[in-house]
């Protein structure tokens, strides 16, 4: 199946052996398709949004609303605490984030929150939609691998605090 994707045989021979059977698509190409397993590669490292933009997530999550069938004790506890300040107009401070994340025993450090500016951080809108689209291609497994530790940290931290993802180390 891969062979006819390649421009010529020489290109195929240059591939690492493991790669020869892997289907690699952009998120745009994968839109509307589905796969058992999705391996999202360097989504943050290659993101046009910078690290500060991604850190807006950290200032926002303390107030995000949520309910879901796959509830966990940690997520429920977190939401209960978060709901107390739902109407609070101030952004979460670094101290809030550290405090909130404490119970979750995370292996990654909390990012410094960046306050949200709709104009300056407008890229985040399509970035989050891209991420949503990429993740929802999978029927069974999603693995997110990213080499940019700082850019990936806010979203990783957010999902781990909310108990919506597992730390695969």
């Amino acid at each position: 199946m891969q062979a006819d994707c390649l421009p010529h045989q020489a290109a195929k021979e240059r591939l690492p052996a493991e790669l020869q059977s892997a289907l690699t698509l952009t998120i745009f190409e994968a839109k509307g398709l589905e796969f058992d397993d999705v391996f999202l590669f360097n989504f943050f490292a290659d993101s046009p949004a910078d690290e500060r933009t991604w850190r807006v997530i950290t200032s926002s999550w303390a107030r995000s609303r949520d309910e879901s069938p796959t509830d966990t004790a940690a997520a429920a506890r977190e939401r209960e605490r978060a709901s107390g300040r739902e109407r609070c107009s101030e952004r979460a401070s670094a101290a809030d984030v550290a405090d909130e994340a404490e119970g979750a025993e995370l292996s990654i450090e909390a990012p410094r929150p960046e306050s949200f500016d709709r104009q300056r951080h407008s890229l985040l809108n399509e970035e989050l939609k891209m991420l949503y689209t990429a993740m929802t291609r999978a029927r069974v497994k999603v693995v997110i691998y990213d080499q940019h530790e700082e850019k990936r940290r806010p979203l990783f931290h957010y999902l781990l605090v909310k108990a919506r993802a597992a730390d695969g180390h």
Partner: protein
Amino acid sequence: MCVDKNALFFTGDTCQTIARGVGFRFEDLTTMFFQLGEQQRKELSARGLRPDDMPKRALVQVPRVNQLSVNYRTHNGILGAASQIVSLLLELFPHSVDALEKDVGHFNGPLPTLLTDTSKDDLSILLCGSDPQHSQIEFGAHQVVLVRDQVRGRLRSAQWRTLSAQWRTLSAQWTLSAQWRTLSAQSRTAEDCEGLAHADSRPRSSCPL
């Protein structure tokens, strides 16, 4: 274009509007139809007509929006994480997506895995050996590597060895329930009709390498 203006049918997920600079919401669509209807009423009354005088299909109506709340593709492990991202979108960009009920899957499954220890390139050598010819491949026709763009997503050999080693380790950890597999097998028929579930239906010209 369409004789009966009300016989149009739209489907979509506003969280997946990823074309740059293009936004769409069903809420905006219903607003548009509402305004068209108002405009039509004005035009009719200017000609001395009442809406009741017109055949029903000639009148613009505001379309009904039906939310599909069951997700047949995937399980709640993935849907929970996805809806968490939607929460962020609703919080930060409330006018960019439709506020809908969260969709629910028929079964539970593994949470998305975040690989946080990606600095050790030596891991690949430890797990795979130095000869990639002898490493076992876990990526098959039902797996996909999603990248930003084909050039930047190009994997170097060493990176790829790290990936496949980690993939293998993770696959060993994941055990899916028998129930999941059964339901999954049963649901294939429906998916076949959609034409999305098969390797054959995937684009064949998109491999960059």
